[in-house]
């Protein structure tokens, strides 16, 4: 064996090799054809590169649509350069010198993976292969039986081959594997019998049970997180995220050091509580209103697209009908023209047909123009309605934000009053002994106090303003994007249709030109 390796030089997959391999796949005449005009690698779905003494994988990036790749019986040492083969279903890397499983993260569709007869000592880096059904990793260096647990994440795994690994020497190998992979149908090319499975599951009940629990917990957590994320997304599309609660209020006070100090003043706490309550209720109102408006907008958009779709289908049908009529009418015309004996008749028929084609072109174009006009109007309507919706939404949001500001102003006034009072007390030295020093520092003179209160107030207003600004800009952006999209769709559609019509007419005319007519009389 070693001699053989010495004689044949190790290879890297090169363009030539690939080319040759691809060409060899088709047979006989097809091969000739293939050679003559070349093959687009994008169209190749299967590729076999076995027994080629390949050391390094390369030059496969063009095969985007490959579903089956055979690289068995080479001397590959590292799985690499397979990232672009995202459609791969079947990958065979058996009989190579691979030591580590890696580089499979993009092959999410992979169903059948063979790593038989390699030098792998750990099952790892396969989390992306969620569709895996058949996995062969026999004759490797797997030694730790517990590694099998890793395979539990493949919910579709039905066939597994582990034979020939050191871990198989363990007596418990088979029951352990079956117990931890209860969905397995074939293990090491043998059918897993029901009795064996039951016995194994019973035996390892205590070790699999916690595993199951942990998995279930993880799943539940994931789902919960997902649900929360989804909800947030939904709120975001309604532009009112984080408004269903005290989030905005907390953020107003979060960075406000002055407010924290002022909170120590007598009476401020109650004031703050009341303020908070009112503020949150306004926020809740805003939130609910936002959701409602969102639904309204969604309904409007879906309504529009429904009608649009209806109109387009009707239009498509109409166009289809016209074309079918034309085709039925002229089904045999070309043949007739070819077979007509006299030149004159042929010529006149030709002219007639040509006329008909032009006529068809005319009709189709008119129809398209008409549709385009109709749709343009439709889109204008839609734009108007969306604009109205958004502007009412903005107005109302502004109103509610004004409420917030009012609340803040009122709160500010009261706070100021209390501060002044406290200041007076402080001057009279009647201040509470419990107050922390930095709070005491505020009450040095009036300006300091008023400044502190004002600073806090300004900060709050700023927060409210910025939140309002966010909502408004998001809403406007949405409006722009929705209308833009509708318009763009229509433009694309119109272009495509016109292109299609022109192509079709060209095709017809070309066909006509290619028709052999009888020779004109001398």
């Amino acid at each position, binding site marked *: 064996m070693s001699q053989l390796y010495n004689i044949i030089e190790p290879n890297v997959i090169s363009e030539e090799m690939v080319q040759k391999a691809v060409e060899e796949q*088709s047979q006989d*005449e*097809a091969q*000739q*054809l*293939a050679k*003559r*005009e*070349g*093959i*687009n690698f994008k*169209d190749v779905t299967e590729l076999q590169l076995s027994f080629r003494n390949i050391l390094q994988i390369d030059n496969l990036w063009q095969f985007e649509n490959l579903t089956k790749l055979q690289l068995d019986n080479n001397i590959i040492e590292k799985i690499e350069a397979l990232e672009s083969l995202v459609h791969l279903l079947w990958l065979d890397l058996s009989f190579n010198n691979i030591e580590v499983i890696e580089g499979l993260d993009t092959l999410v569709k992979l169903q059948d993976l063979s790593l038989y007869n390699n030098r792998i000592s750990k099952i790892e880096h396969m989390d992306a292969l969620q569709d895996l059904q058949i996995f062969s990793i026999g004759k490797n260096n797997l030694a730790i039986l517990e590694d099998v647990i890793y395979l539990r994440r493949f919910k579709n795994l039905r066939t597994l081959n582990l034979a020939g690994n050191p871990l198989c020497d363990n007596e418990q190998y088979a029951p352990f594997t079956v117990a931890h992979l209860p969905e397995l149908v074939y293990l090491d090319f043998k059918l897993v019998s029901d009795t064996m499975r039951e016995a194994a599951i019973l035996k390892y009940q205590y070790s699999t049970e916690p595993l199951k629990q942990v998995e279930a917990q993880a799943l539940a957590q994931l789902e919960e997180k997902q649900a929360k994320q989804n909800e947030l997304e939904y709120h975001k599309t309604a532009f009112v995220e984080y408004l269903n609660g005290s989030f905005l209020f907390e953020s107003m006070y979060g960075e406000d050091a002055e407010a924290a100090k002022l909170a120590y003043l007598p009476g401020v706490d109650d004031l703050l509580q009341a303020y908070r309550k009112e503020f949150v209720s306004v926020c809740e109102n805003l939130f609910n209103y936002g959701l409602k408006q969102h639904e309204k907008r969604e309904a409007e958009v879906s*309504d*529009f697209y*429904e*009608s*649009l779709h209806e*109109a*387009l289908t*009707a239009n*498509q049908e109409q*166009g*289809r009908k016209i*074309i079918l009529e034309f085709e039925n009418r002229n089904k045999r015309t070309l043949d007739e023209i070819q077979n007509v004996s006299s030149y004159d008749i042929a010529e006149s028929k030709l002219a007639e047909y040509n006329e008909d084609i032009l006529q068809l072109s005319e009709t*189709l174009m008119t129809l398209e123009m*008409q549709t385009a006009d*109709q*749709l343009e*109007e*439709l889109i204008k*309507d*839609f734009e108007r*309605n969306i604009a109205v919706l958004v502007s009412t939404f903005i107005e109302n949001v502004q109103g509610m934000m004004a409420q917030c500001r009012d609340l803040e102003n009122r709160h500010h006034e009261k706070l100021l009053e209390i501060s002044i009072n406290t200041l007076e007390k402080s001057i009279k030295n009647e201040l509470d002994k419990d107050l922390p020093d930095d709070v005491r520092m505020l009450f040095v003179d009036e300006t300091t106090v008023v400044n502190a209160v004002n600073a806090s107030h300004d900060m709050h207003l700023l927060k409210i303003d910025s939140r309002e600004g966010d909502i408004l800009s998001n809403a406007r952006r949405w409006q722009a994007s929705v209308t833009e999209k509708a318009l763009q769709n229509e433009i694309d*559609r119109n272009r*495509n*249709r016109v*292109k*299609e*019509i022109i*192509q*079709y007419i060209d*095709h017809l005319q070309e*066909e006509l030109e*290619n028709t052999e007519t009888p020779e004109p009389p001398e």
Partner: protein
Amino acid sequence: MEVLKENEEEEQREEEELKALKISDKQHDVERKLSVDQACTPNDVPDFDWSSIDTSQLPSSYKTNSPKEKKLLCIADNFLQQYAHLCPDREPLLLHPINECGVEKFVSTTVRPTLLPYTELFHWEGCASFVSDYLTMEPLKSPIAPPSSLYSPTTILKYQRGNCFDFSVLLCSMLIGAGYDAYCVNGYATHNLCTMDETLEVCPLLRKPQKRQVPKEREKSSKYRVKPPPDLQSKFELQQEAKKEAETEAAREKKEREEEEKARVSQQGPPYPESPGATAETQETEKPKRDPLHGLRVHAWVLVLSGKREVPETFFINPFTGNSHSTTDEQFLGIESVWNHRNYWVNMQDCWNGCKDLIFDLGDSIRWEFMLLETDKPHLLFLDVKEEEELFDRDMDNAEKEEDRRFDMPPSWVAPIQISPREFETRTPQGRKVILYKKAKLEKWAPYLNRNGLVQRLTVYADSHYTKVVEVREWFKNREDKLEMREVNKQTQLTTEHFHPGHLLGLKAHIYTSMEPETERTMEFYNEARVDGLQKRVENANEMTEYFVGRDDFLYFRHVEFGKRVKKIHIAGTRTDINPRPIVQIKECFHRNVEKPADEDVAERVFLTTEERINLTYHLNDKYITASKKNFLKGAESDRKGNEIIMTPEMCTTYQAGSSETDKKQLHLYKLLQKLTEEEKQLKHEVWESAAEVLEILKTREDEAADIKLTVSIYDKERNEERRQEYEAMDNLMEDDLLGQEGQDLDYLAPFLIQTGNIEKMSKGQALCIKDNCLTDFKHRLTHKANIIQAHLQKEVEELQKKDQWYQENQNELSTEDEADFLAYCSETMFRIRVLALRLKREKQMAPQKYLALEEKLRKDPRLNMYLSHP
């Protein structure tokens, strides 16, 4: 006493009134007699003499009245008197007509609720159609009076004939048995109903199923509706045109209406209620004259109240036809009384408007006067006791009355209704029944009566004199070829045959004019039963169209055009029948396969075999109006065998919707063409097979028609000859087995013969020895047996003695229970001892006899005989 007096007075008054009535009746009578004669339409039912029936075999309950029944009759009489007193102007009630033995029986007791063991009779439809089929209708003796006699349902069933009351009582008995809240109704109906004249009705089989109008989905009014393109036609011109059209239309309609009106007037007297089936269509038929007895004709039918058995709405059943009618049906003109097996109610509501306004709440004692006070009617329970009493006060002396009313209805005097499976199956008298409908004749037969399995035939005529046949429909049952129905249109000669599932090759229907192959025909198939999913195949001389359902390759339509059969050169030895018509064109259509992109999903492919062309049309892509196309011209493909087939760009014209560049390589096209060529070959074969299949079906059908076989269920012991033989054979075998067990003697000799070894050659001594051994052994056995019995006996006796001793010792301390136990034990043991003693005695007696018998037998045994007999 006063009460009595009052009663007497009342009775007197009643009598007077009755007399008066009679007088007035007499005035009527003259008219009536006349009309009665008229009304008795000559019916084709042969007269049957009811007086000749044999009543001697009937049970005694038929011939006598039990005391309870007698009391019931008294109550009924009393009720009748009061009724006549209260409602002097109403007809006398039918309360206790005489039965077949001449005994007066109350009508409610004639109803015998019975559930018959046939699944069809668990529903009212089945019961009603059975009664209407099973009995032959007899008209009432007098069409305007209830009959004077009412026979038991059993007698009616036995003779298979009866009048409307007999029909109703039988049907009512079966319905109540099946759990329906059913009542017999004595009332008035139209002439047609009373005489079972259905010639004005459209045959129910011909009635078109009512089209349920599916409410259209309401158009969603959307603000985004495309405005239609401007209409450039002149509105005025359109208006003018529409106006003109409307005028002509109006004129035509008017004319039609006038004609109709005329016809209508000529047909019927205005007050005669129009039966729904008889509309203006029947202009040429002789319309019945105005019935002089309208409203007086007595009829009996069945009322089924809603509630039980999930009956949603109260309805009538006409027992003659078995049809259900709404309670508002105009053919029912009034109700006198209703009864079931529990009670009798008299209708106190006005019937001036037929039965339309009647309310069927029998618990309402103002609308319905009951005869017996019932406790299990829920409606009555709600009434206050006081109210109830008031109610009775209104009538008369309540104390006595109430007692009377609390009287339970005695059980029916009628023997249980029985229908044998044979009778049930045969149904109609003599197994045949003919009903005439409007322009149609319906004949029914019992299954297996006709050799070809015919059970029903409907002949539709063009006129009402039943001369010009338009259409014949025949229904079959139990046919081996699964033929269910055959429809022959006499005008077009088009025959349609329908088959049950299970026919060879899944045939479902066959429409044809002649059985010649390659003529016009349509075959429908049960596509679920076929591998190829074929649903329908339509053929004519040079075309064949096949429709498929549910195929994996999405094929749903295939059309084949055949050319003229080439006058082929007859090569000696070739068979003429294998000469398929040349195929000119095959066209296939496919449904959209969503898994493929539309550009690659073939919608239609046409193989023009003579021109060597293949045209492919693909499915429409989203939003596109032109479909991609590929046209192959195979002309240059293979000139001669062995030549290389090279794909040239000229061979294929492609139109790809939406993209100008033909990025497909020739290789692809070549592969495609290769595939298509292969498929074309396959397809030709398939077409040929289809044609062969048609021939096969035709042949099978011909064979089947020539030799009609009927299937017999394996559970049908009477008809399934094979099965019966099998069964009988099995029976015999079982009997044999039993006999064998008893009769077969044990071979006493066998063990001894084996001991000696060589059976063939035995000396006389040996034989004697065997015989002796056998006999001694038998003797031992007998003594042993006797000993065993003896031992048992002794044991029992000892035990008894022990027990007795124990009893004697502890007698004083025993409880009564223990004592009873002891006594029981004693008697049991004594019994056992007796039995054992008896057996022992018999054994002793029998032993010598048995011994002698065995000796005799051994002497005669051929195995020993040959040695023993020779000296």
